[in-house]
């Protein structure tokens, strides 16, 4: 469980969060999304403990121990590591800091990463896989993954996601992901949080969200519904609406379509930019 209570945070004079609260129960898989610069990565960094709130508290499940970072696996978009170390040295360093007796390198075995290679010599994709392998070796109770997994190729992404699924089936792993490629993780996600101007604009269970966001293809704008964004064509327009009420189904002109998670998130984000 991660409990964020009344957190305010700023980068100098640029405020990101003001009196922000959020609770993520143990074992939940969340997707945090929103437009660029809205504070998604900052939120993840706050949860990982690498940023400290100016005000407010972040509490973790007491089961995580005195220093929850021991059980938090965090992969940031910056992929911060000691670049001058070799892979073997970086693994040794990681093991000594976390007090690990062994290191499961099954993820990097799928790559062409060599032990004597320096971290700085790795490509972004290799670095991401290496970083993911480091944090998975901790057997984390909380996994925080920024949008960086876009940089790994389809095969390695599949391998990584299989590992996540394995972990999820073994124990109650809490996962918070930011803007990851939705189509291959849609089946994992239970909750979607959309940030807007440093606040939570949408916080829904994925099934509820899918029932509430619809695409209506019609000539005229459905005035009775809240339109997030629209795409105009010569003959008709596509209206993305939220929240959609099933009771209105008969009264609406045009065809109503269900959306997948990628389309839902695009509709919200498209609305922000409109």
């Amino acid at each position: 469980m991660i409990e964020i209570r009344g957190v305010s945070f700023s980068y100098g004079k640029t405020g990101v969060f003001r009196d922000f609260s959020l609770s993520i129960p143990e074992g939940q898989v969340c997707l945090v999304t929103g437009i660029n610069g809205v504070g998604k990565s900052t939120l993840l960094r706050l949860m990982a403990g690498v940023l400290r709130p100016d005000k407010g508290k972040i509490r973790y499940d007491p089961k995580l121990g005195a220093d929850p970072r021991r059980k938090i696996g965090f992969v940031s978009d910056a992929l911060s590591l000691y670049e001058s170390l070799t892979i073997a040295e970086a693994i040794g360093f990681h093991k000594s800091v976390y007090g690990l007796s062994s290191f499961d390198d099954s993820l990097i075995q799928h790559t062409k990463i060599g032990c004597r290679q320096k971290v700085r010599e790795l490509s972004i994709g290799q670095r991401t896989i290496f970083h993911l392998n480091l944090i998975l070796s901790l057997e984390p109770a909380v996994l925080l993954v920024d949008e960086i997994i876009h940089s790994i190729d389809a095969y390695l992404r599949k391998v990584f996601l299989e590992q996540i699924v394995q972990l999820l089936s073994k124990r109650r792993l809490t996962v918070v992901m930011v803007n990851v490629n939705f189509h291959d993780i849609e089946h994992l996600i239970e909750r979607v949080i959309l940030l807007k101007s440093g606040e939570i604009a949408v916080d829904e269970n994925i099934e509820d969200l899918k029932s509430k966001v619809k695409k209506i293809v019609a000539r005229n704008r459905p005035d009775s519904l809240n339109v997030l964004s629209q795409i105009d064509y010569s003959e008709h327009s596509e209206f993305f609406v939220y929240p959609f009420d099933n009771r209105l189904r008969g009264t609406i002109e045009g065809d109503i379509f269900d959306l997948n998670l990628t389309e839902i998130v695009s509709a919200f984000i498209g609305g922000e930019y409109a």
Partner: protein
Amino acid sequence: MLRKEIRDALKRFVESMVVLAVIPFMYIGDKLVIKVGLDYASLIDTGFFLTLVIFSIYAGATIFQPERKDRAFEYLFSLPLTRRKIILAKILPRFGLLLILGLAATIVVGRSLLADAGITILVLFFSSLFLSIGVFSTAINIFGVILMYLIFFQGGRTFVYLLSRLGGSFAGHFGPLVSQLVSAAVLLVPFGMAFWLTFKKMDARPLKLQMRTYYFITLPVLFVIVSLITLSFRSSQAWLLSR
């Protein structure tokens, strides 16, 4: 963590030892070409002293260099390590190597360089260490250390003068040592406090956004010390010349 820092400190140590490696070449060069008549023993003496000075500054100034160069502050702060553990793991190997170098110099040179210049070496090490968090380039850090040393040096002279006015045992044999210690403490304690308070609260935000406490403590302290030295400069100089 400690193992990695020992490796890093050793790297700086080896880099600083270049000065010692140059000595035999200087001696041979003098014998063959320049013929100034350089004395090998005094060259070794100077070499060790310079190595101590260079290593003390370099070791302190580069304490966060791996994190800066590799942009690894975020990784460092994500590790389950307290700030105290991090800072001890960084300082102890460097300080240990400084002592080893000092002892090696004592054995080779035949007199204790640390006894002669111990306070100066410590001031240089801790000045560069405490400046390293608030100064974003090693070159500016070294320039800052030189300024700090000048303040420490002149501060020592000012305190000798002030202690002499107090009279008693302070003005006697231990006067210069006590005044050096007071000067070092007056300069380093506030800088050390500023360093620790800043590092304790530090996170992965850009460093420039986290220096308020550091500058809030150090700048007024510098202003007061420099003002005191300036105000008493004439009278302390006149007193020193009269002795």
